[in-house]
């Protein structure tokens, strides 16, 4: 990920909610690179910073309470600190960010990191909050006690960062020494049987740890535990009790006694069983309506801009039809289909950043946890799930707020089932053409609402099945810190928005663009001139010469015999049980880039005026099989809607799943949703046509 390899690496580690990322942002500025660690869905953030004379790569490690590697986040922290991650060298110095209001618990991780054998600098952060609570910690005395430099900082206001950089520069040359824990002799000798290096205490203490499995140390660990038990020590609790006793001695008398903890007062209202839920519902309504409706003008603007660009470029290239179509429909259309997601992504991440930085996200998870717990999901899945009713793309990006990997994967896999805004044009066309005229406006409204409930009703049991039978790893315990409420900082919020937007464009955008070009080619080629001549002649014989009408018929004929058109005709037997004719089948295939493309493709196939949807509705209603029976019965319309409710005809969602969880899961999502869509459509058609 780094463009130039710097010889020095400085890692930033610490507990969650300590202002670690704010401090990282303060050190590195906006020039950060964001990606994933190889083969794992943990975000990797790096930047650069000068420490004295030297410039170093700064790595922001995930926030964890312990090095015990039970979650992917913790595994990354441990692997990064021990130099086991490709492309992330073992750090020369680790900045441990500790919350000054909670020194004891924070030092647990610090003392674990010290044992790995990397030089430390402690950033004693949020000293302003601590002082407001009456906690005063003398950083110099703490440095003496801990044997490593401790610098008081207020990262949110950029205070103490220069002193911190100076301390890092010093530590690069002369690392201090954190006082080692006085482990019982039995622990030390057991650790020696497990390699006797920086990892061996972790190999000794951590149960169910992927690290133990990766090093093939399962049997050795069991033996070491036997040795501990023989010495009268409990392998499960000996680390925490000894370590905390050690920390208590280290910090004895170091700080003034804490007054009452501040920043929790709002909990009385915000987690109240009536007011809390009402405020939660109101806030979620604001979030949802912002991504659903407020993003709309921006999206319309982007669409109009790209339409204008396409026609402007098209006019310039009128003499070269193929290049014209490639540029207007393929390239400009492809870029447009990436940019179109930015308004929703930016708006959602504005809210995600504000909700997380203020501490409210933890409360939202607390309020909603019970609703999700039985499925194997947890309260943190709520915001992404809700967002996916607007669009699965930003929602899947927002699943990064879910730290339990199992819950995160299942949320990613079921989010695309929620009825997103791209399905709306399909529903509106079908309901407008076949439900409203036959059954009235009330039925039309009920059908539209029903389609939205359907996705949720199916997603929840599927999440349960995925968690229960597919994801084999053990669920992580639900232990969620409730940080004190804090005022979000504009800089942090905007950095987060910028990063998520940029990351989507850079990582997913390229793949989405490539998909667009492929689909364009499938719909464009082959294009023999005889087709145009034949259609023009046929129309002229019927007295049709109006240029636009002729162009529509020509486009329709070309799409018919294009590669995609041939694929559609070939695949029609597969969709026959759903009641789909070959035109619907082509439109279904052509909708792979995005579901709403179904409408415009049907428009081309029926040579209908693209500005006038009522014309298309009339043409659909008049369409018939060779034997004269209508193609579009209410049962077929229902089958189409159900198919689009469940299918994953959305290259952007597929790409984002692949980027967040890997192509294996993206393939799985596509296959299971397509199967579900087909079964649902067959059921709807077969039952519907017998009623």
């Amino acid at each position, binding site marked *: 990920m780094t463009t130039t390899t710097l010889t020095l690496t400085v890692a930033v580690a610490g507990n969650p909610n300590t202002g670690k990322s704010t401090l990282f942002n303060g050190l590195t500025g906006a020039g950060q690179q964001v990606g994933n660690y190889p083969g794992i869905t943990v975000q990797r953030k790096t930047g650069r910073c000068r420490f004295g004379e030297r410039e170093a790569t700064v790595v922001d490690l995930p926030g964890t309470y312990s090095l015990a590697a*039970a979650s992917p986040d913790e595994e990354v922290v441990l692997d990064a600190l021990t130099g086991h991650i490709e492309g992330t060298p073992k750090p020369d110095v680790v900045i441990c960010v500790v919350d000054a209001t909670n020194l004891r*618990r924070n030092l647990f991780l610090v003392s674990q990191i010290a044992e790995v054998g990397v030089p430390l600098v402690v950033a004693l952060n949020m000293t302003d909050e601590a002082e407001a609570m009456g906690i005063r910690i003398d950083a110099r005395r703490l440095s003496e006690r801990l044997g490593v430099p401790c610098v008081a900082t207020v990262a949110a206001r950029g205070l103490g960062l220069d002193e911190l950089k100076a301390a890092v520069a010093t530590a690069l040359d002369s690392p201090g020494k954190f006082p080692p824990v006085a482990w019982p002799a039995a622990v030390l000798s057991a650790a020696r049987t497990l390699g006797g290096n920086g990892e061996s205490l972790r190999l000794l203490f951590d*149960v169910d740890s992927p690290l133990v499995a990766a090093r093939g140390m399962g049997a050795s660990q069991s033996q070491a535990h036997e040795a501990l038990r023989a010495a009268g020590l409990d392998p499960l609790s000996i680390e925490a009790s000894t370590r*905390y006793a050690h920390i208590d001695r280290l910090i004895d008398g170091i700080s003034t006694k804490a007054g009452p*903890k501040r920043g929790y007062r709002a909990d009385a209202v915000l987690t109240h*069983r009536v007011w809390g839920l009402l405020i939660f519902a109101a806030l979620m309504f604001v979030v949802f309506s912002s991504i659903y409706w407020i993003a709309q003008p921006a999206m319309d603007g982007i669409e109009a801009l790209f339409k204008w660009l396409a026609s402007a470029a098209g006019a310039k290239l009128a003499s070269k039809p193929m290049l014209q179509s490639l540029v207007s429909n393929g390239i400009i259309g492809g870029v447009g289909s990436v940019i179109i997601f930015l308004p929703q992504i930016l708006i959602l991440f504005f809210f995600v950043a504000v909700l997380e930085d203020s501490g409210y996200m*933890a409360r939202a998870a607390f309020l909603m946890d019970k609703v999700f717990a039985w499925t194997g999901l947890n309260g943190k899945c709520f915001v992404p799930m809700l967002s996916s009713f607007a669009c699965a793309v930003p929602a899947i990006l927002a699943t990064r707020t879910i730290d339990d990997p199992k819950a995160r994967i299942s949320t990613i896999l079921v989010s695309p089932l929620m009825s997103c805004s791209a399905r709306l044009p399909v529903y509106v066309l079908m309901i407008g053409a076949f439900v409203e005229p036959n059954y009235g406006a009330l039925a039309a409204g009920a059908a539209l609402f029903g389609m939205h409930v359907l996705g949720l009703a199916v997603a929840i049991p599927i999440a349960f099945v995925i968690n229960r039978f597919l994801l084999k790893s053990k669920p992580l315990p639900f232990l969620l*810190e409730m940080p004190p409420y804090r005022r979000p900082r504009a800089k942090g919020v905007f950095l987060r928005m910028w990063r998520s937007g940029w990351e989507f464009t850079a990582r997913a955008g390229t793949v989405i663009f490539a998909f667009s070009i492929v689909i364009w080619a499938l719909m464009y080629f082959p294009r023999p001139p005889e087709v145009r001549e034949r259609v023009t002649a046929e129309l002229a014989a019927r007295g049709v010469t109006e240029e636009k009408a002729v162009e529509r018929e020509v486009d329709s004929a070309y799409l018919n015999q294009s590669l995609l058109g041939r694929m559609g005709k070939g695949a029609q037997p597969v969709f026959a049980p759903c009641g789909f004719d070959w035109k619907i089948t082509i439109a279904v295939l052509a909708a792979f880039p995005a579901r709403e493309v179904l409408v415009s493709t049907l428009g081309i196939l029926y040579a209908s005026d693209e500005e006038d949807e009522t014309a298309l509705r009339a043409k659909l209603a008049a369409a018939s099989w060779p034997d004269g029976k209508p193609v579009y019965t209410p049962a077929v319309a229902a089958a189409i809607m159900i198919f689009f409710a469940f299918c994953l005809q959305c290259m952007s969602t597929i790409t984002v799943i692949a980027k967040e969880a890997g192509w294996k899961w993206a393939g799985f999502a596509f296959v299971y949703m397509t199967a579900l869509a087909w079964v649902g459509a067959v059921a709807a058609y077969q039952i519907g046509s017998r009623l």
Partner: protein
Amino acid sequence: MTLRDLEPLRDAELTAVTARGVLAQRLMAMGFLPGARVRIVQVAPFGDPITVELDGWRISIRLSEAACLDVKESA
């Protein structure tokens, strides 16, 4: 009695961690150790999870996890 059975807002002292495996290790790493003072400060609207105050900070845990923490109510 376990933390699950503790009345909200009553002070208690943790006497034992009966959880196993990863859960036990995590709880203890966060400071749920015998001798720690705990108090339930919030119960979620649907009865589960609960928010526990420990050492001046707050953490939300599920009832099933609270059942793995033995406590003694302070007089």
